[in-house]
């Protein structure tokens, strides 16, 4: 799998006001020169911000605010709502979707993959399919950390700059 993103990749976080997403957003913004997190989506939370990232009700609003197409989305919504979130991203022109959520029913994942294929150009990396897609942790890490090559030894939210002792 080639490298799909770099430091110029713009992305949103769907479910950005959730506990995991708030941490993830902070990690993304802190990393390297800072990731291009151009917005977040949580229905009903329009007008808030998460570490300075504006929150919208819909992906459409996020795209409108950004003023041009958004490259990617990190989806962190609960399993029952993941399919709709991914559909929303794909139908709003997002080309790369990273799904952090676990335990999504297979049928939903199959629908996402098929819609992505129908809207040629979009691709997604669901956690549930670690065997056929790169693992979510790797993808989430690479998406969350533009500029870091997604190699097994380097990819990861804590990056190489952190102290380590073994």
């Amino acid at each position, binding site marked *: 799998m080639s490298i799909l993103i770099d430091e110029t990749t713009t992305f949103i976080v769907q479910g950005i006001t959730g506990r*995991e997403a708030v*941490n*993830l957003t902070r*990690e993304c913004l802190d990393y390297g020169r800072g990731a291009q997190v151009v917005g977040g989506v949580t229905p009903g939370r329009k007008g808030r911000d998460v570490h300075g990232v504006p929150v919208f009700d819909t992906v459409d609003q996020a795209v409108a605010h950004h003023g041009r197409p958004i490259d990617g989305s990190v989806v962190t919504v609960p*399993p*029952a709502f993941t399919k709709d979130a991914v559909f929303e991203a794909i139908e709003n022109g997002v080309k790369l979707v990273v799904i*952090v959520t*676990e*335990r*999504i*029913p*297979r*049928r939903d994942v*199959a*629908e996402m*993959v*098929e*819609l992505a294929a*129908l809207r040629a150009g979009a691709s997604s990396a669901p*956690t*549930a399919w*670690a*065997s056929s897609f790169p*693992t*979510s*942790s*790797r993808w*989430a*890490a690479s998406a*969350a950390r533009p500029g870091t090559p997604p190699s*097994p*030894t*380097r*990819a*990861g*939210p*804590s990056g190489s700059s*952190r*102290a*380590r*002792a*073994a």
Partner: protein
Amino acid sequence: MRFFEYEARELVKRAGIPVTDYGFATTAQEAREIAVRIGEPVVIKSQVLTGGRMKAGGVQFADTPDEAAAKAEHVLGLEINGHMPRGVLVDPKARVKQEYYAGVVWDGIRKQPVMLFSDMGGIDIEEVAEAHPDHVGRGHFSNILPLSEHQAKEVIASVGVTGRQLNRLVPILTALARMFVERDMTLAEINPLGELEDGSFVALDAHMDMENEARPRQAAVLDELGVGEEETRQAREATEFELAGEAVDGMDHRGVAGNVTEFDGDLGLVIGAGGGSLTLFDAVRAHGGRPANYCEIGGNPSVRKACGLAKLVLQKPGVDKIAVMMSIVSNTRVDIVARGVIKACLELGYDPAEKISIFRIPGAWEEEGFKILERYGVRYADRSTSLHDAARLAVEGAPA
């Protein structure tokens, strides 16, 4: 999650596919009453989640209600492959002109369901596919586009079925395919699908498997079928240890710390992350280690769940040490897992440095995690130690 035949038949019936006038009984008396209602010779079929019923004597024929009661009594007490039956299905002995096969299975490579049809029913479809490939029709269908009858028609017609049979079979395969999607099935087959003397078709047996992840949204139908939430319906019954693992995972909704499978080794495993569990389990075995269990952690479980899982594994008889290993984590926090497993050792009165043979989880919040591990003298490794090497360290134990 597998269904018993009597449940699978109910699902077939609800899909609008004709079934026989069968009944489900848990006592000989109930079986007699169903046989009386049917009023003709019946078949008594053991309801077990295992194959080889016929060979084991779990399928019996009875001409009268008295005989039905006697045969039911026998079948109800008959263990098959270690399974006691849930009950018996009492089925009219249908006069079948020809047996067909209709099925829908999940194709994990194409990531689409595929309809299967054969005019050679009553035997395993795999056997037919092997010996008579021209008698098996196949057709994939979309996960999102509407399923149309012509798709089923093409599959059935491809094996040479035509005329009235074709037109009667199309709605059946179509209904089965729609039910497969609607009910989150991974397998739905009617075998045999019988053509009766009068030209009508009826489902004579059914096998269904539902995807576990879909159980919450299928709760209503599962409840109506009488499937308990506690029933795992796996190939074998869950052990006490595994059930305790489920309970740990169910303590709260944060992340995953469970999916425990019991093995008879001595090395306790607390493992996970994006395929890491399987990789690590295999690596431990490759280094000659004997795992006491398999499990999965991911999605940032709470300290409580990580602690509960570690405690469970530590308390398993025969377990000397645990190895805590994951691939590089992004959303699961290293410090939370570290805190959980150390807490487990302390609460059980163990020295974490003694009980944790290796802690190898690099990734999110590793700095904080490693600090905690250092404080308790636990041997740990960062991402410069591969999963393979971590497994070797776990098997070899602490250096002298």
